[in-house]
């Protein structure tokens, strides 16, 4: 075996992991201290910000390049040698996106108790991963989730459905991450949005393209360390300042009590109007700990359920557990993953509570001239508004409030509007910390967005290269293969051209983009193809496809599509409706047949997609033809929109799909079910259809049943043996 020496070398590599990442963490802390010193001697903030971004990006890129690989199993599943503990960290980074890092605390600030649906939903799902799905897929020995569907459900049609579900739920998700990098860097470091997107794209490509899963794994661990340090440091300092104990998760209980007292005081002083069952218009105060003010109980528990089951169905998460050395370690690894994720999620409510206390005591109820100056930085960016205008400076605030008739000169609850992204990002300033800590938070947010983007991109590109190209196109007879290959190339060119037609340029002319997007992959192929072995060709295809997927999602992100953040929530419901019944029944019920699974995926996923698209983009048709009605206000129980009044308006008679202004969009549905919970309709239907159709069709063969027995036992070889 030619790999003997490299195995010995990599054994040494695995033994040193602890020391390597220990040194890395030490180096990172030293880097923060160094930047802190630079700040003290007067280096401008902007330079510090850029240093943070480029230093961390460079480190990720170095790790990505250093761990490049030319082996198929290393490329797809990191050689199945990642220890449980480290895979847990990598999964943590894979899992926690820009939405978790920046958005979660903001949602909790805004929604109070109801926001905890997201905290619960995004943690409890790992229980399902471990007990129902993950370890069994590891035993099976797949490279991708569609691999399993194809083997269990008789071939390429099931594989193809699996790829469609995977691409649908992952592509919007990765676009949201790349969008997130642009957002963080532009808001926080004053970089131009498009340049930030582009820098993020380069970072992602350098990590994922050369080394596939292997490189992504080792980079994600590095990114986890950055993001968790960045998330915890400001809040620990703030907790120590306020309560003298550096454990914010314990001290914010006191903050919550103060918030509740302050809420009552504000209402009593007439500075806020309490949201009640009789009237709850926007701008009224919803007490922080009171449940079901923003979501009805059905939608609250629906979100928890969809996010949990979605977790156990998302391919980019499941495939992380393909990389462990054994089934036992896959289980241990899920537990470690949740522990590492938990560290961030149980701190997020503390961010929300401390910020809310600051806003309720030092901003609202204060005389306008004495409000705290940290908010002007954010007001300048349009993220904080007071009296309906951006709070760019004290003068702007005074002018805006003076324009309101009868304004008391004291800031009232309804005068203050904050963008939820500000909550995490502004905490260092609230605590009065130096800029270097703010830069650290930005680096953490970038790490969160990039690591998730890496994992998602790899999931999509692997499905395209492994499932579509290697498993479906390659085995075709030569002539048909050429036709398909030709069509695929033409389709890629068309898609790329379509994306390039979007109004984004990063300030660079169109022709350079066309050149870049065609020349780089073509150059790579031309240079390596002639001398490449079969394995080499497979990896070249994988890399070229990865490049195109990344380019397309960056291009889409740069157009700033309005629905992108909502789509992340949709991805969970779609994954849940499409994958969960087929995966779990495939493992837990031997009687599941090919016909049943295929019918179940189509029916469940189809219903979920239909509900989403209709209620978001074609609500008029939903009301007219499909019996949808207005959702209800959770507090007052009244309809959110007057449907018949809207339909009587000639302007909204027909559907206007692209218009976000459509007054019915996202506000109609069945059973008062928010469309983010469409999995709640799709998944049960999927289970039902699989059950009924399976019982109607012939029992799976003896071989298939023996195969199911095989994946249920940890012992023995993996079922699917790929040649390396």
């Amino acid at each position, binding site marked *: 075996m030619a790999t003997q020496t490299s195995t010995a070398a990599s054994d040494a590599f695995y033994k040193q992991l602890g020391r390597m990442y220990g040194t890395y963490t030490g180096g990172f802390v030293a880097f923060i201290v160094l930047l802190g010193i630079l700040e003290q001697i007067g280096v401008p903030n902007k330079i510090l910000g850029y240093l943070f971004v480029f230093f961390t990006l460079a480190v990720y890129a170095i790790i990505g390049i250093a761990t490049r690989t030319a082996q198929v199993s290393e490329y797809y599943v990191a050689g199945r040698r990642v220890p449980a503990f480290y895979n847990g960290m990598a999964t943590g980074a894979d899992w926690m996106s820009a939405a978790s890092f920046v958005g979660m605390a903001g949602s909790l600030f805004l929604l109070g108790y109801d926001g*905890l649906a997201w905290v*619960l939903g995004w*943690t409890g799902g*790992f229980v399902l991963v*471990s007990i129902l799905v993950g370890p069994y897929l590891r035993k099976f020995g797949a490279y991708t989730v569609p691999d399993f569907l194809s083997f269990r459900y008789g071939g390429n049609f099931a594989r193809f459905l699996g790829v469609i579900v995977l691409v649908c739920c992952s592509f919007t998700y990765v676009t949201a991450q790349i969008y997130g990098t642009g957002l963080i860097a532009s808001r926080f470091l004053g970089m131009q949005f498009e340049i930030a997107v582009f820098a993020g794209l380069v970072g992602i490509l350098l990590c994922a393209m050369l080394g596939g899963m292997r490189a992504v794994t080792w980079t994600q661990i590095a990114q986890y360390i950055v993001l968790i340090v960045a998330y915890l440091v400001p809040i620990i300092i703030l907790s120590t300042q306020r309560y003298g104990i550096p454990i914010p998760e314990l001290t914010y209980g006191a903050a919550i009590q103060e918030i509740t007292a302050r809420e009552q005081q504000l209402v009593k002083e007439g500075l806020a109007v309490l949201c009640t069952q009789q009237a709850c218009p926007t701008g009224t105060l919803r007490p922080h700990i009171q449940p079901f003010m923003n979501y009805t109980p059905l939608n609250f528990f629906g979100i928890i359920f969809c996010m949990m089951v979605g977790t156990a169905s998302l391919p980019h998460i499941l495939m992380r557990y393909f990389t462990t050395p054994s089934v036992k370690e896959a289980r241990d690894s899920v537990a470690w993953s*949740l522990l590492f994720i938990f560290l961030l999620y149980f701190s997020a409510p503390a961010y929300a509570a401390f910020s809310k206390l600051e806003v309720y005591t030092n901003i609202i109820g204060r005389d306008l001239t004495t409000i705290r100056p940290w908010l002007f930085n954010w007001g300048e960016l349009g993220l904080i508004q007071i009296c309906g205008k951006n709070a760019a400076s004290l003068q702007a605030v005074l002018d805006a409030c003076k324009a309101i008739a009868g304004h008391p000169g004291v800031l009232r609850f309804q005068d203050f509007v904050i963008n939820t992204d500000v909550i995490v990002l502004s905490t260092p300033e609230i605590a009065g910390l130096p800029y270097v800590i703010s830069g650290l938070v930005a680096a953490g947010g970038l790490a969160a967005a990039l690591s998730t983007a890496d994992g998602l991109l790899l999931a999509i590109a692997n499905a395209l290269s492994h499932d579509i190209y290697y498993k479906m196109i390659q085995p075709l007879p030569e002539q048909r293969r050429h036709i398909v290959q030709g069509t695929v190339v033409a389709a890629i060119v068309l898609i790329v051209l379509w994306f390039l037609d979007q109004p984004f340029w990063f300030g660079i002319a169109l022709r350079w983009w066309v050149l870049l997007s065609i020349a780089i992959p073509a150059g790579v192929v031309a240079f390596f193809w002639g001398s490449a072995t079969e394995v080499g060709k497979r990896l070249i295809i994988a890399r070229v496809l990865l490049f195109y997927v990344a380019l397309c999602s960056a291009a889409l992100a740069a157009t700033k599509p309005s629905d992108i953040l909502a789509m992340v929530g949709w991805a969970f419901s779609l994954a849940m409706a499409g994958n969960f019944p087929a995966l779990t029944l495939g493992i837990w019920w031997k009687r599941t047949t090919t016909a049943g699974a295929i019918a179940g995926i189509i029916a469940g996923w189809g219903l979920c997609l239909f509900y989403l698209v209709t209620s978001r983009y074609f609500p008029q048709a939903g009301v007219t033809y499909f019996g949808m009605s207005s959702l209800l206000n959770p507090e007052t129980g009244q309809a959110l929109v007057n449907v018949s009044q809207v339909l009587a308006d000639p302007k909204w008679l027909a559907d206007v799909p692209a218009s976000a202004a459509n007054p019915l969009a996202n506000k109609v549905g069945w059973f008062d079910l928010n469309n983010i919970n469409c999995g709640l309709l799709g998944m049960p239907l999927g289970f039902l259809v699989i059950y009924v159709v399976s019982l109607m069709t012939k029992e799976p063969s003896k071989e298939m049943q023996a195969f199911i027995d095989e994946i249920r036992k940890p012992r023995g070889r993996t079922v699917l043996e790929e040649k390396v």
Partner: protein
Amino acid sequence: MVEPSQANTDAHWRATTRLMFTHLGIWLFFGYIIHMFVVPLNKIVIPVLGFPLGFYMAAQGSLIVFVVMLFLFAKQQNRIDREYGMAEED
């Protein structure tokens, strides 16, 4: 290495299924059922820390249960695998 008998295979799977339902039950309780009683639970305030109990369970309590549960599950399932001779060789 003796190939395990079908009876052994079935017994292993029964034990696995039982463990699965036990943990699914705990998951259901701490993921959903307990939060249905958030309003009465909020009347109880945790001493010293000051959290209302209903809020605390959703913000931290259930999360801690999930983490502990997963380590426990990994250990228990491993014990079952070993008992029936289904564990991987070390």
